[in-house]
C-alpha cells in the first residue's frame, strides 16, 4: 500500500474526519474566547458529560447493531438509577453493590424488551416507545410514593464524591500525574467503550449481532440464533443505559425521576455522527465517543460565546440533519462509481 493510498483511506475514514473536525472546533472556540480553555469549569465537566453521553450512545448503538431502535434508553437509565438509589437509601449497600444492582435492573429491563419484541414480532420502535411510556409512569410513581415531596433519593454512598469530583490528577506514576481535565467518570466510559468495541470487532457474539442486523433472514438460514441475539442486543442496551443513568446520578449527586429524560437525542447523535448505520449491520464504537465529544464541544463552545440554550438545540439538530444528508450524498457517489465499473 503506497502513501497516497494510505492518505486516501485515512481521509475516507469517518472517525479521522470527525476527530479533525472535533480538534478544529475545539481550537476555534478556544481562540474566540479563552474562557473555553478553562480546565475546571469548562473542559472537566465537558469530558465528564461526554463520558456519560458516550455510554448512552453505546446503549443505542447496541440496538442499532441489529437494525433496531431503543426509544426507552432514557427511561431504562432512570429505572436503573432508581434501583441503585433505592438500594443506597434503604439497604445501605456499598457503592459497588448498588451499582451492580442498578445494572442488573437495567439489563433485565433490556432483556424483557428484547423478549417482547421476539415473542410479539412487533417492531422495536413501538415496543420501546410503549416501554418508555410505561416506565415513565412507573418511575414517577415510585419516586412520589416513596420520597414524597423531595422526589429524589439523596443518600450518598461512600465514594460517590470521589467519582463525581476528582480527576486523574491524583494518580501519579513515577512523578508524572494524570491530566487534571480527565474526570474519574471517564474510567467507566473507557471500560464500556473497550468492552463493547472488543465485542463487536473481535468476538463471535459481535459478529452474530451484526449478521442479524445486516440480514436477518440470511443470518437465520446460516444457523445463527437470531431470536437470542435480538434479546442479547437489547440486554446490552439496557445494561449500558443503566450505567449511563447511574453515572449521571453520581454526577448530579442525587437520584431523581428526571434522570435520562434528556438522553434520547444524544443517544442517536453519538452513534450516527460516528458512522453507525441506522439499518443495522455496522457499528462505530470509538466513533460514538468522538461524535458525542463533537456535539458537546459545539454545545459548550456556543454556550461559552454566550449563546442561549435554544440556539444550541437548533445547532445540534442541524448537525444531525447535515450528518445524515452527507451520508446519503456519499452513498450516491459510491453508487455512481459502482455503476461506472460494471
Amino acid at each position, binding site marked *: 500500500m503506497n502513501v497516497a493510498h494510505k492518505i486516501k483511506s485515512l481521509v475516507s475514514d469517518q472517525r479521522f474526519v470527525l476527530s479533525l473536525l472535533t480538534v478544529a472546533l475545539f481550537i476555534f472556540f478556544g481562540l474566540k474566547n479563552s474562557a473555553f480553555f478553562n480546565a475546571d469549569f469548562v473542559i472537566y465537566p465537558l469530558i465528564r458529560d461526554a463520558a456519560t453521553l458516550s455510554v448512552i450512545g453505546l446503549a443505542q448503538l447496541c440496538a442499532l447493531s441489529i437494525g433496531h*431502535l431503543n426509544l426507552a434508553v432514557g427511561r431504562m437509565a432512570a429505572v436503573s438509577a432508581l434501583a441503585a438509589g433505592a438500594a443506597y437509601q434503604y439497604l445501605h449497600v456499598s457503592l459497588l453493590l448498588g451499582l451492580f444492582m442498578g445494572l442488573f435492573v437495567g439489563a433485565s429491563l433490556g432483556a424483557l424488551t428484547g423478549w*417482547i419484541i421476539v415473542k*410479539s*414480532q*412487533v*417492531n422495536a*420502535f*413501538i*415496543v420501546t*416507545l*410503549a*416501554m*418508555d*411510556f*410505561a*416506565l*415513565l*409512569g*412507573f*418511575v*414517577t*410513581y415510585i419516586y*412520589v*410514593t416513596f420520597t414524597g415531596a423531595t422526589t429524589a433519593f439523596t443518600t450518598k454512598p461512600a465514594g460517590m464524591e470521589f467519582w463525581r469530583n476528582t480527576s486523574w490528577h491524583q494518580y501519579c506514576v513515577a512523578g508524572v500525574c494524570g491530566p487534571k481535565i480527565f474526570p474519574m467518570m471517564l474510567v467507566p466510559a473507557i471500560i464500556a467503550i473497550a468492552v463493547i468495541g472488543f465485542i463487536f470487532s473481535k468476538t463471535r457474539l459481535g459478529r452474530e449481532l451484526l449478521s442479524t442486523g445486516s440480514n*436477518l*433472514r440470511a443470518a*437465520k*438460514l446460516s444457523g445463527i440464533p437470531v431470536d437470542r441475539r435480538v434479546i442479547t442486543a437489547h440486554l446490552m442496551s439496557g445494561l449500558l443505559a443503566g450505567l449511563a443513568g447511574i453515572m449521571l446520578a453520581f454526577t448530579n449527586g442525587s437520584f431523581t425521576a428526571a434522570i435520562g429524560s434528556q438522553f*434520547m*437525542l444524544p443517544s*442517536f447523535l453519538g452513534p*450516527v455522527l460516528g458512522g453507525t448505520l*441506522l439499518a443495522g449491520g455496522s457499528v462505530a464504537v470509538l466513533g460514538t465517543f468522538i461524535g458525542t465529544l463533537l456535539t458537546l464541544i459545539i454545545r459548550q463552545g456556543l454556550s461559552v460565546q454566550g449563546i*442561549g*440554550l*435554544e*440556539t*444550541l*438545540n*437548533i*445547532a*445540534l*439538530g*442541524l448537525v*444531525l*440533519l447535515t450528518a*445524515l*444528508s452527507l451520508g*446519503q450524498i456519499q452513498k450516491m457517489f459510491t453508487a455512481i462509481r459502482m455503476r461506472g465499473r460494471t
Partner: protein
Amino acid sequence: MTFKSFFRNRMTELSLTIIFIVGFLALVSTSQGVLLSRASLQGFLTYLAVPIVIGMAQMVVLCIGQMNLAVGAMGGVSTAIMATQMADHKVSIPVALLVGFLGATAMGAINGALVVLTQLNGFIITLGTMTILLGVQYRLVRTFTIDKYPTSLPDFGKKNIVGFPLILVIAIATSVVLSMYFSRTGSGRRVLATGGNALAARLSGVSNSRSVFIAHTLSGALVGVAAIITIASLPGINRSIGGDWMLSSFSAPIIGGVLMAGGTVAVYGTVIAAGVIRLVDIARAQYSLDPSIVSLTVGVVVLSTVALSEWRRRRTVRQNEGRKVLPA
C-alpha cells in the same frame, strides 16, 4: 357490503366504542352523576379536541409506515408564532392563526422534503427537526407566558354549538374531512397505497415520493389545527406547550387500529381511542391517583394492542397462505 366483512373490518372500532360507552357509564355511576354536570362534561369534551387532532397528525404519517416525532415541537412553535404575532406585533387574530397554521404546514412539508431527499426513515429526520424546532420554540417564547392578546380568542374557545364545545366540533369536522380525503379522493388512496405496498403502488402508477411528501405536509397541517385549538382553549402560551403531545399522538391511532407497518387509517378509531384515553384521565382524577398511572396504563395498553393485532395478522396469513408464503 355484507355484515361479515363489515364486522371483520371494523372489529377494533366497534370494541372501542363499547369500551368507551361502558367506561363512561361506569364513571357516571361511581361519581354519582357528577360527570354529567354541565361543568364536568364541558371539561371532558373540551380537552378531548387536541388529542383527537394530534392523533390524526401522527396517523397520516403512520399510514405510510413512518412516524413524526416532531408533532409536539411543531405544535409548540406554531402556537408560539400565533401568540407572538398577536402579542408583540399586534396582528389580528385570524391572520395570526393563519400564519401559525401555514407555519406548521411548512414544517411538515420540510420534514417530507427531507425524508424524500435523504431517503432516510422519517424517524431520524423528525428527531433532527424536533430538536431544531424546540430551539425555535424556546427562542420565541423564552420563559414567559404570552397572554397579551385580545380576549376574544379565549372567548371563542369557550363557545358552544348545540351544547358541544366549538373546538371539539372543529376537531370532529377535521376528522370527517380527513376521513373523506382518505376514502374518497384519488390523492388519499394513493398515499394509502404507498403505505400498503410501495412496489405495488409504483407499478400502479403512484409516485411514492409524492405520497411521502403529502403525508408529512398533511401531518403539519393537522398540527396547525391542533395549535389553533390549543391557543383558543388556554389562557396563555408558554414553552411547555407540545411537550406532552408525543404519547397521545401515538397512542390514539395505535389503539384505534392503525397498523405501524402502514397502509391503513382509522379516523373513527383514532377519535374514539382518544376518548377512551381521556376517560382514563378522568378516572385518575376521580380516584385521585397519581398522573403517572395514566402513562403507565396507556403504555401497557398500546403494547398489548400492537401485540394482539400482530398475532391476528399472522393468524390470517397462516389460514390463507399456508401453501404459498415462505417466511424465514
